[in-house]
């Protein structure tokens, strides 16, 4: 059920995106007129201080939140035209999320966590378990497949999360501070894994980080400051 994408300018293309919240009666503008285009197979870092709006940008990129204005095309789909179900399907088939706090479901085993996205595609349980196990092998955790997330170390959890992000063969991985909760050695391993996926499998990689060392290893760096995006070629 992979998507057949017409090639549009940019795999991901945002034009004039704005987003604001009403908080306690106050109008808070988070993103102003953001335009950004990311090609298939690129690796891109989104940098910015906390509160700069980079997480909001990531949520919009990941179709978890809708912008107030502008135009957003994701893999040829106009996001403003899509229904909630279509957005869910695009998330399911095109986007793999990796979160800072892993966000594994604590009550499911590592294997069931990885198999979960396939369940929402109607893949049979047998097949989704087989594919999940294969993916856990790729991240080097096959022997931990039946452990609960609580029984795994931080690095192992993040590997499970990456396996879950990849199991549906997405076009893009959106990672929000993927190494934020890990020690520096494990962080390097996780980054190596993500970059290897980007290089070897051509998965588009978008990483939100405040760590310049991580951003350096990516093709492109985008800086968010006060709700405005700047292209930063050298940080």
């Amino acid at each position, binding site marked *: 059920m992979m998507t057949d994408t017409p090639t549009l300018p940019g795999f991901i293309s945002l034009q004039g995106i704005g987003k604001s919240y009403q908080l306690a009666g106050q109008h808070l503008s988070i993103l102003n007129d953001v335009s950004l285009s990311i090609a298939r197979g690129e690796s891109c870092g989104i940098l910015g201080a906390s509160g700069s709006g980079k997480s909001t940008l990531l949520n919009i990129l990941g179709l978890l939140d809708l912008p107030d204005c502008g135009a957003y095309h994701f893999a040829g789909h106009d996001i403003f035209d899509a229904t909630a179900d279509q957005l869910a399907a695009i998330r399911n088939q095109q986007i793999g999320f990796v979160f800072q706090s892993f966000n594994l*479901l604590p009550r499911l085993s590592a294997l069931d966590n990885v198999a979960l*996205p396939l*369940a*929402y595609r*109607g893949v049979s*349980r047998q097949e989704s378990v087989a594919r999940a196990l294969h993916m856990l092998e790729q991240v080097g955790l096959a022997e931990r497949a039946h452990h609960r997330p609580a029984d795994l170390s931080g690095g192992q959890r993040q590997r499970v999360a990456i396996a879950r992000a990849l199991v549906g063969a997405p076009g893009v991985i959106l990672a929000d501070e993927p190494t934020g909760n890990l020690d520096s050695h494990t962080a390097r391993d996780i980054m190596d894994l993500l970059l290897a996926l980007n290089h070897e499998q051509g998965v588009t990689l978008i990483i939100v980080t405040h760590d310049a060392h991580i951003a350096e290893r990516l093709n492109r760096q985008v800086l968010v400051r006060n709700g405005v995006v700047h292209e930063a070629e050298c940080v």
Partner: protein
Amino acid sequence: MSLGVAQSLSQLLHEAFVSLRTLGKRSILALLGIVIGSSSVVALINIGHNAAEDAAMIFKDMGTDTLVAQFPPKAGSVARMPNSLNLQAVHQAVPGIAHIGAISSFSGPVIFHGRTTNAGLIGSTPGLKDAMRLVLREGRFLSEFDSGETFAVIGDQIAQALSAPGDPLRLGDRVRVNDYLFLIIGILQNQPRSMLIPVQINESLFIPAAGMRRIYSSPQVGSVVLRAAAGQDMERIAADATKALSAQLPEHTVEIQIPQQMIDGMTRQSRTFAYLLLALGAISLVGGGVGVMNVMLMNVSQRRREIGIRMALGARQRDIRNLFLLEAVTLTAVGALCGAVLGMSAAYLYAWLSGWQFSLAVSALPLGVGSTLLVGLFFGIYPAVSASHLQPVEALRDE
């Protein structure tokens, strides 16, 4: 591009069970409410059913074609009932009557081989056998030619009471009542008690009505038992028989009860009873349903983050809704099954304690289990829908 994705049923069930297992104590508490509700519905329907069965049993052997006439004196009258009635005239006046017999009863000790027991002494006319559906185990009933004889037909229980091991009461034996010996010409079969007939058949000694004077100086006709021919309008026969009997009894009122009316009354009564019980069960079910809703709402609010993650992974609103709905229904289904077992046991126990025959009400299980599942569905919808309407970004933000 096909954006239609669906989660297979087995996947859904698998997740619902994993989730319920981990809900643990809270789901057990919610279960308790459901179990009580569903078991009371099942038990109450069944108890109501058994009560109605028991009531119907009373009439079962009686049939609805039997009428009993009684004769209370008219106000201010002190006239006694005659010791016999012209039943032939009544029979002729009301051709719809198949059998007719009169009863004049008295009670006293019956003695056989030194053994004594108390019996109802029933002065009978020959038509009584068919009017009351008496069935003989041995011998024959009193005939028209026996009216002058000291013959008797004995009820099953009296016959047993007068028998001793090695010395049973047999046809041809003589029993003594006062100073008269009565020859036993028939022994009746054990017959169920009938509410309608004013005689305990098993505990009676039937003797010719004409011979009643031997043991009792002024016998009176106490009641008349009529049996209608097949396919007759009972109310019409009752009215006609009342008229014919009244002609012979100027000083007495003739009262005839129609069994169908009594049966209808009892049926109505037991139906009201069953509805009342059903309402009680329904109320406890609603209580259980509120418990389920409470647990599911708590469940949803504790799992907001999980809902967000699932949405990020591609769950649609309806997937989230189904997830929680299925959990609520699975929870109630487990409760309904426990309740069905518990309710049946309670109904069985109740029937046993009341000395009723236990029989399974066909509607009890499907109604009890079905209504419980509906309650689970109804009270599960709100939490499930509220979960599915969460925005992914808001749900994920929750810590």
